[in-house]
């Protein structure tokens, strides 16, 4: 690839980063929200580097030069982003990987925040359910949001994936749904459930980790949220 084409590739990849972060929320499908401004800065640097070097090649003295062939590969992520726009990870990744282990909290957990039902992250619910046997839920209703996964035995789960950095390190967290006929739910549908703690525990068939349960009182289908991963 010659130098002018290299500059154009830098413009494309920088542009793709800006398109994901400045002009949409799509980057949230791939990385943590905290990475946004780093991505904007990186996109801007790549666009500036592409523009300055392209300007110099077009109007400067030097003749075009052959460059590395590997540069062509940089088109792949750009085309994947613009054409396919891969979705956030869903039930396929979760059912392959199984529920992840949840760390024992370092100290006693604070009491539940206010609100009835109280809105909790899936990570918070699973941690309180497994490490405190649901002690902090006594008499409270909680609201959880996630997408549906179903295991081989037909149990339906509300699932959310936690990221540390990017989707490659995503860890699925699952809560079994008690009181919902699984046949009524399709995989990957986003739902919000309100319900109470149920002490039943399941064992994930893939990872052998323990999975807690929620006794569902109401279940609502919702559109996929802009931030698909658990906070």
């Amino acid at each position, binding site marked *: 690839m010659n130098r002018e*084409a290299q500059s154009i590739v830098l413009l494309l990849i920088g542009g793709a980063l800006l398109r994901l972060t400045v002009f949409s929320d799509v980057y949230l499908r791939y990385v943590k929200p905290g990475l946004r401004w780093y991505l904007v800065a990186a996109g801007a640097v790549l666009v500036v580097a592409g523009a300055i070097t392209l300007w110099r090649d077009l109007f400067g003295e030097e003749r075009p030069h052959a460059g590395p062939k590997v540069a062509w590969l940089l088109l792949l992520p750009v085309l994947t982003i613009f054409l396919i726009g*891969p979705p956030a990870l869903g039930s396929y990744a979760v059912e392959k990987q199984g529920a992840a282990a949840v760390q024992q909290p370092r100290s006693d957990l604070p009491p539940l925040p206010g609100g009835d039902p109280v809105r909790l992250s899936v990570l918070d619910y699973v941690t309180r359910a497994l490490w405190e046997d649901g002690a902090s839920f006594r008499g409270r209703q909680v609201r959880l949001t996630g997408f549906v996964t179903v295991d081989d035995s037909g149990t339906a789960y509300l699932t959310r994936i936690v990221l540390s950095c990017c989707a490659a390190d995503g860890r699925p967290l699952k809560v079994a749904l008690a009181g919902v006929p699984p046949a009524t739910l399709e995989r990957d549908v986003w739902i919000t459930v309100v319900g109470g703690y149920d002490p039943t525990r399941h064992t994930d068939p893939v990872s052998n980790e323990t999975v807690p349960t929620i006794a569902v009182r109401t279940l609502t289908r919702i559109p996929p949220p802009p931030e698909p991963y658990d906070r």
Partner: protein
Amino acid sequence: MAPTTLASRWRLGSVELLAATLIAVIVFRGPLVAAFDSPAARTWATIFVSIVVQALPFLVFGVLISAAIAVFVPASFFVRALPRRAALAVPVAGVAGVALPGCECGSVPIAGGLVRRGVAPAAALTFLLSAPAVNPVVLVATAVAFPGRPEMVAARFVASVLTATAVGWLWLRFGRTDWIRLPQRPDLSTMPKWTAFWLSVRHDAIHAGGFLVVGGLTAAFLNVTVPRRWLDALAEQPVLAVLALALLAVLLSICSEADAFVAASLSQFSLTARLAFLVVGPMIDVKLFAMQAGTFGRGFALRFAPLVFTTAVLISVVVGSVLLC
């Protein structure tokens, strides 16, 4: 525009090829998108894009530092900053890795820039290995991922610095300079400084970025295909468990700022096996191998990768059995 002669007019240039590729992709958009309709292909595409997107800020940061080293820092600075004897410069470079907050994607172009600036390759390679593993961001992430286990942070730091230094010394003793082949780049010394800076940025970004994509493609493929059950079977064998997680670190190519969280979630494995995961991952994985081959040449990467892998696994086992029992 460059002047076109009759001879060059009929040659297909890169820009024309690039335009043709983009037009072809737009024309065949329908079938291309349809090919990604299966959940496995979509999951692969998501992981591929997320590895590349997540690495790009660190890569750009590394490329900017590398360009600044190449253009604004005189070569004499490194001669003064590092001990003259390479055998002493190696451990200094190992501990100096603490100062670079970033992950492994940034340290490859930086190490390339250091070698160009006349730093002894053994010292630059030690820096390459230690910087992504022992900087404050990574150590804090490790402490957060392993609450109540500060010995894990200590073991990671000690094992990483020891591995980086040991590899540096081994390279000094047995390595040959003609194994390292830096890609040619335009002579920067005759240009205005800022022009040289941006040309260096383009050169490094194109090289490191292209190989990042190679690694991202492979890592995403393995991420989607390696079944979880294999891991559980291996976790029960103490020796195999260490090798399995070291190999997993190579295959998954997770950023060093995130790998501690993944290690923490592999709770069926021993702490020593997980230490090996944390020590090997930032130093050698499929993405890094591709980037190192692109920056230092394939002959280099083929020798360097097994050396680093073996050293890292051995030192992790020793440090793990001392600190993590």
